[in-house]
């Protein structure tokens, strides 16, 4: 079930909350626990596509989603993250395309498990 883990990651998954170092101004995502000199910092959710692919051989649990678009997104604040692109076709995607975060279901861990929600990205419309 991994209940505690998904609960622990909720701020990062649901609202893209990373951390900012007040001294240096550096921003990091994902947040790392246990250090006091970094403060919670919600990222804007804006970014650009660093690269992308279409996954046709999915891992267990994602068979119904495939094919899906996977991307590395360079966030406006600096960090890069891995996420799916949604609400679009692969033909619409190019490297450097502006994208924005949306919240979607990531995983259905079965009848006894969780529905895991989190960030995906779509071509910028706002």
């Amino acid at each position, binding site marked *: 079930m991994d209940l505690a*883990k998904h609960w622990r*990651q909720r701020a990062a998954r649901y609202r893209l909350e990373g951390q900012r170092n007040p001294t240096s101004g550096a921003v990091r995502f*994902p947040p790392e626990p246990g250090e006091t000199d970094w403060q919670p910092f919600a990222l804007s959710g804006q970014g650009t596509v*660093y*690269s*992308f*692919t*279409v*996954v*046709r*051989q*999915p*891992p*267990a*649990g*994602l*068979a119904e*989603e495939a094919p*899906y678009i*996977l*991307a*590395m997104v360079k966030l406006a604040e600096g*960090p*890069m*993250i*891995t*996420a*799916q692109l949604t609400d679009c076709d*692969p033909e619409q995607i190019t*490297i450097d395309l502006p994208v924005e975060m949306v919240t979607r279901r*990531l*995983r259905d861990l079965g009848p006894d498990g969780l529905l*895991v929600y*989190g960030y995906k990205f779509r071509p910028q419309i706002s």
Partner: protein
Amino acid sequence: MQPVYIIGSGQTAVAEHWDRTAGSLAAEALQAALGPIAKHRIQALYVANALGSALHVQSQLGAAIASATGLHGAEAVAFDAAGASGGVVLRQAYLAVASGVYDLVAVVGVEKVTDVLDARLEDGLALASDADWEAVHGSTLTAQWAMLMRRYMHQYGYDAIDFAPFPVNAHANGAANPKALYRFPITAEKVRSAGAIADPLSLLDSATVADGAAVVLVASAGIAHELGSPLVRIAGSAVATDALALHGRPDPLWLGAAARSAAGALGSAGLSTGDVQVLELTDPHGIAATLALEACGFAERGVGVQLAREGAITLTGATPLATGGGCKARGDTVGANGVFQLVELTRQLRGEAGKAQVNGARVALAQCLGGIGATAATHVLVAE
């Protein structure tokens, strides 16, 4: 530090061994490696395996493989560093012998992947990536190499077809290896026209995961000289790591751990890339070989793919690569890959590689990567 030698090597065929267990594969490879050496002289057994815990729900593979190979009671332990396991284990054996604690250590790489369905295997392979920030999003290693390939093409101005000489070379060499999974040549045109497995990666630019076991025996000078066979010395050894998540690296196209471990291994051997006459890399896709060639210093950044286009990676080129077929044609045995690499390079340095022999090969380099290079192990072997 005592000098350390590889005094024996053996391998099973890489195949879909439906009727075999990991233990029986390991036993076959060990028997082939032992030759005239009495089994009871092995003082420790180090096992390289990446997927046993995930696919077979079985830990303690050290004990399991010791029993299966008839080494009941011996010191035995398994190491997991995903695709880097083989090299990481060789380093442990190297340290044990170099320190003088042991005179003979068996390094066993074994992987049994065909007992589960494809989706579960993809899941197992994805364990090499960051579970919380990559795998949960449906990321797979194949998808990550594909993203690096697209970025590389974008950044340096190449087409997908430019990478085709890597699988073409691997298959040309694999055709001469009786232990290879695929023993037939392919053409660049076939690579181009095959479907995409993860765009822009062609199905024929993607290794197939299969079962197999490989063994090398690592020994002190005393035992090595006792045998009187051609000597292969481990002249350099280094392991390095990088951020687990690919997106967590300053420049994802730069395999930092590969670079550091290659520099460390070559440095400790007192050699440079120009001295290396034959090499094995983690090359499930042309992009993987390209980035490793650049990280190791065989090519400047952005031109690694040209080594393949110009024929430098062929048997008669300056940097012969994948002489046993590499991950693509020999078959991808994940945690055992690093040991299969050593078996191939030992054959090369002993002049036993037959049709795939690189003439006069005296210095070889083996590098294996865990995942997209979060762990990298590099060894330099020298014929004495």
